[in-house]
């Protein structure tokens, strides 16, 4: 029990998230005065260094923004450049992209569920500690097996699990043979049981009672759970194509922080990511994923960020099934890419990264050189909502001592799976510790 009216909590290096950040909470006179999620990932200036590069280069270059979700960057980059050049890829190529993206969802979600997030619910410092504890070994092994299947898709379709080499503007360098994918299907069938077990397991966790009322934003493609393409939509009725993204979403640099904060024009903060996708598209999950979600007690929407681990688990079930479906009807696209001759134009692309909507815009000149680039990753879009949630979360828990409160805040931040390395916009500034 702690009743000091003035407190300051600081976690200087948040663990089990991708990248480097810190959290500061200031309490004055018994009320939460300020909560800041500070990102001290040094800036890497991707938007600046892309200028003067060939229009064929962004898939390779922007993959390097994030080792956890390189496919998301590659896919949004391809869509944007193809849109600028007036090219639309064949359905067969789009399907192969969706399959590759399923691999990234499985890999990234399994990593987050088992290695980064579950230790919070089970009271361990890490999955490696969990693995040392009897049944924990099997749990962590299950997570690693799932993760490995995601990586197997990325390696076969993308050529490499981290920074895939097989993606090009206009398609793929090489289309995998049907027999190669058949071998992958066997691994996926085994993984489906692991994925379903993951949902059942996570459903048994204890979730704090906490709901937000943010506007939620995700891609939507009626009839399908949107991944590699779709229209941007929100839970309060917004709907617009990627080309209008910058009319609706404004990024601001804020002095205290680091990532540019995004907000919806005239509407304010919003949330993107698995719970937003789920809330907007849960009816288009496969029957088995829908059934798993129902059994886990997820309704048609999800506004409790702590339950995001359940949504990720359901999305893994979906991604495994979807990968199996795509493999079953696969015929190698011929050709596996089309030439994309440059033209002077601007193009936009948005896809669903494991952590939410990722937007790219490129301007290209007649020579095919990039004259300007803009990249909006999910974490900078979510930062304002995360801070708002933390403010309310802390206010309701001021009776906890510093250590407990700090631990719970860290867990709350991990709900959003923030990926700080998506560092296009992230800067390093002097912190006012007043």
């Amino acid at each position, binding site marked *: 029990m702690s009743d000091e009216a003035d407190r300051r909590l600081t976690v200087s290096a948040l663990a089990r998230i991708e990248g480097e950040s810190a959290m500061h909470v200031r309490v004055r006179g018994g009320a939460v005065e300020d909560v800041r999620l500070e990102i001290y990932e040094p800036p890497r200036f991707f938007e600046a260094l892309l200028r003067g590069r060939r229009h064929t*280069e962004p898939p390779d270059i922007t993959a390097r923004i994030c080792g*956890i979700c390189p496919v998301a960057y590659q896919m949004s980059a391809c869509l944007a450049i193809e849109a600028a050049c007036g090219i639309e890829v064949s359905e067969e190529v789009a399907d192969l992209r969706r399959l590759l993206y399923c691999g990234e969802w499985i890999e990234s979600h399994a990593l987050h569920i088992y290695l980064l997030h579950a230790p919070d619910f089970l009271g361990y410092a*890490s999955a490696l500690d969990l693995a040392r504890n009897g049944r924990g070994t099997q749990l962590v092994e299950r997570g690693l097996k799932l993760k490995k299947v995601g990586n197997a898709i990325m390696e076969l379709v993308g*050529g490499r699990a981290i920074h895939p080499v097989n993606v090009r503007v206009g398609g793929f360098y*090489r289309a995998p043979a049907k027999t190669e994918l058949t071998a992958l299907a066997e691994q996926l069938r085994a993984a489906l049981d692991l994925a379903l077990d993951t949902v059942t397991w996570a459903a048994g966790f204890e979730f704090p009672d906490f709901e937000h009322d943010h506007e939620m934003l995700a891609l939507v493609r009626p009839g399908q759970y949107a991944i590699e393409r779709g229209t941007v939509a929100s839970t309060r009725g917004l709907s617009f194509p990627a080309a209008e993204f910058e009319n609706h979403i404004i990024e601001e640099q804020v002095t205290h922080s680091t990532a540019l904060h995004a907000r919806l024009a005239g509407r304010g903060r919003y949330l993107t990511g698995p719970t937003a996708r789920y809330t907007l598209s849960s009816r288009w999950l496969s029957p088995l994923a829908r059934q798993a979600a129902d059994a886990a007690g997820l309704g048609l929407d999800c506004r409790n960020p702590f339950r995001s681990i359940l949504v990720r688990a359901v999305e893994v079930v979906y991604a495994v099934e979807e990968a199996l479906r795509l493999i079953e009807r696969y015929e190698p696209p011929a050709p596996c890419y089309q030439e994309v001759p440059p033209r002077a134009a601007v193009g936009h692309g948005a896809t669903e990264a494991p952590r939410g909507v990722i937007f790219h815009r490129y301007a290209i000149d007649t020579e095919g050189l990039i004259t300007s680039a803009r990249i909006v990753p999910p974490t900078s879009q979510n930062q304002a909502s995360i801070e708002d949630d933390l403010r309310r979360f802390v206010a309701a828990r001021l009776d906890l001592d510093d250590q407990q409160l700090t631990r719970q805040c860290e867990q709350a931040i991990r709900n959003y799976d923030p990926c700080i390395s998506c560092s296009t*916009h992230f800067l390093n500034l002097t912190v006012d510790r007043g």
Partner: protein
Amino acid sequence: MDVPAPSLAVWKFASCDGCQLSLLDCEDELLAIADRVEIAHFTEASSQTRPGPYDVSLVEGSITTAADAERIRQVRGMSRTLVTIGACATAGGVQGLRNFADVREFTSVVYARPEYISTLATSTPIAAHVDVDFELHGCPIDRRQLLEVITALLVGREPNIPAHSVCFECKQRGNVCVVVAHGTPCLGPVTHAGCGALCPAHQRGCYGCFGPMETPNAGAQVGLLRAAGMDEADVRRAFRTFNAGAPAFVELSQVTAGPPPGRGPGDIPERRPDE
């Protein structure tokens, strides 16, 4: 008698997280590693860290801020063996492209209020700041090579990481040479092995993400690229990506001489590296 397990620390500087993710991507070996090694500092994986010293530090990322230049000295001081992992830590990474530009101009392109940004004008490899015991190449590193390094350090031998070119790996893998067969520009002849010749296996030319091999023949390589139809600016761009700061790639990006485009690869004249 119990001998304490050697301790491992993982550090991140300016980077994408991909190289340290390679450790977590060792799905079949991770738990065995954790049995043999005390993972003492790895914030991406654990909220529990213990203070140094550490037997081995794996360092990902490049130095781009004054604070990080200080932090790497502290890490060095706490580490018996320091291994850099990946192109950022060994060559400055893709963010090293700022070294060829004006960082203030870069800042103003990305941020509305550049005055809040504190960054160095350059992105430099770890070895520019402290002594490094071993450098593992790649953007990203290859996880099998990472396992080889960890294994070698555990038993106290030199890691077996060949410094020859990607061409050797193409031959080992049985790839058809994309240059000879298709006239595709390929950086394989000057690029450090380690990936297993992935790009040629996917019918594209190597793009040099493992950085330069031990003794690249710059003139011959640029001749190859020019013969495949690349102009001077294309050649410069080809060497200015993820290992732009590696001295051999800096040199290659500045070689302007070469045969006129349109000649077959078989016509490439012999050149000395210093031409």
